[in-house]
């Protein structure tokens, strides 16, 4: 059986909620173009007031880090504990800092 594949492309959907948080990945969906992807995202991912702004990105355009490189990729930050404020002991007398 020969089939002409006309499957709609996949889009990744990002929604920003009401309280000033940044856009967050919520899932994906199929649509023939970007406008339709926004409309479909409205129907699928904001049925209960979840958002005030929608971004759609073709899934094929996403470049992800390599999970096997996890170790080497994040190793440099492991040893830099001084980047966290709790590294420094400030005497109680100084008060809130």
């Amino acid at each position, binding site marked *: 059986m020969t089939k002409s*594949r*006309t*499957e*709609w492309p*996949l889009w990744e959907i990002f929604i920003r909620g009401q309280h000033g948080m940044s856009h967050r990945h*919520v*899932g*994906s*969906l*199929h649509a*023939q*173009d970007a406008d*339709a992807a926004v409309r479909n995202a409205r*129907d*699928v991912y904001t*049925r*209960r007031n979840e958002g005030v702004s929608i971004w759609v990105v073709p899934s094929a355009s996403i470049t*992800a880090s*390599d*999970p*096997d490189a996890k170790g080497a990729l994040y190793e440099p930050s492991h040893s830099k504990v001084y980047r966290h404020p709790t590294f420094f002991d400030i005497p109680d007398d100084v008060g809130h800092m």
Partner: protein
Amino acid sequence: MYAQMIKSEATQDDPEKLAAFQARIDAGDTIEPKDWMPEGYRKTLIRQIGQHAHSEIVGQLPEGNWITRAPTLERKTILLAKVQDEAGHGLYLYCAAETLGVSRDELTEMLLDGRMKYSSIFNYPTLTWADMGAVGWLVDGAAIMNQVPLQRTSYGPYARAMVRICKEESFHQRQGFDIMMKMANGTAAQRRMAQDALNRFWYPSLMMFGPSDQDSVHSAQSMKWRIKMNSNDELRQKFVDQTAPQAAFLGLTVPDPDLCWNEEKGGYDFSQPDWDEFFDVLRGNGPCNTERLAEQNRAWDEGKWVREGLMAHAAKKNAQPIAAE
């Protein structure tokens, strides 16, 4: 539940990689699409998530049946919203399955030609308005039993789909119970309809969990992989323990003369459904199998020109700016 009798696939991978993979699962790690995974894990998940998705989609039919005949405008809008949610659930799950390397159209085609299954429960007819109550209360109630623990399943996209779904399910169960309360407290005829709906949906709901899998090697493998969280019997027991008192609250009788509280085990004793009937429904011989599949096929075939037309239009629009340069 919505994925029944899922056979785990044999895995022929490098034993060292397998051990490392199992160690990640045992440590509570989440497996993500680009991570290495055993072929069996991937295939089993495609089948399980796919069947779950198909159930959400086909599950719209028995309820869609009553949208135009809901008794009030309010009930109609509620039912419409519920069915719309189920379409969303199907979509979340298809997307999760697609991260495993299968396409949406492939999954749909496998449903349409019978290579993939959907839950046995949706092959039963919805004969009266009270069935909308029974379906929400019992069928969505049974689905919740299975879906809540799956929020902690090992495959990330599946777990995240479950989180979204669980947020929406309790509306489904409550609207069903609300219908049942109305009917059970209504006229004698309404009471009879409510009891009749419970009579017809009780055993098919118990079947949703699948036959006992205590000794199943497939279940053992799936549990090791954390894509199955509880045994079928465990979930069925939980469901009966939760539902029997609710039926009593409604003043309805569970159609099982042997249903009784067992103080010792801290749960109800109850009768098993007719498992021959269950296997027969899975083989395609339930009251609505033919109708459901025909309806899905019709929708797919009749929508073909729309899908292709929109795609052709999008391609034309994309080509235009380039031509103008």
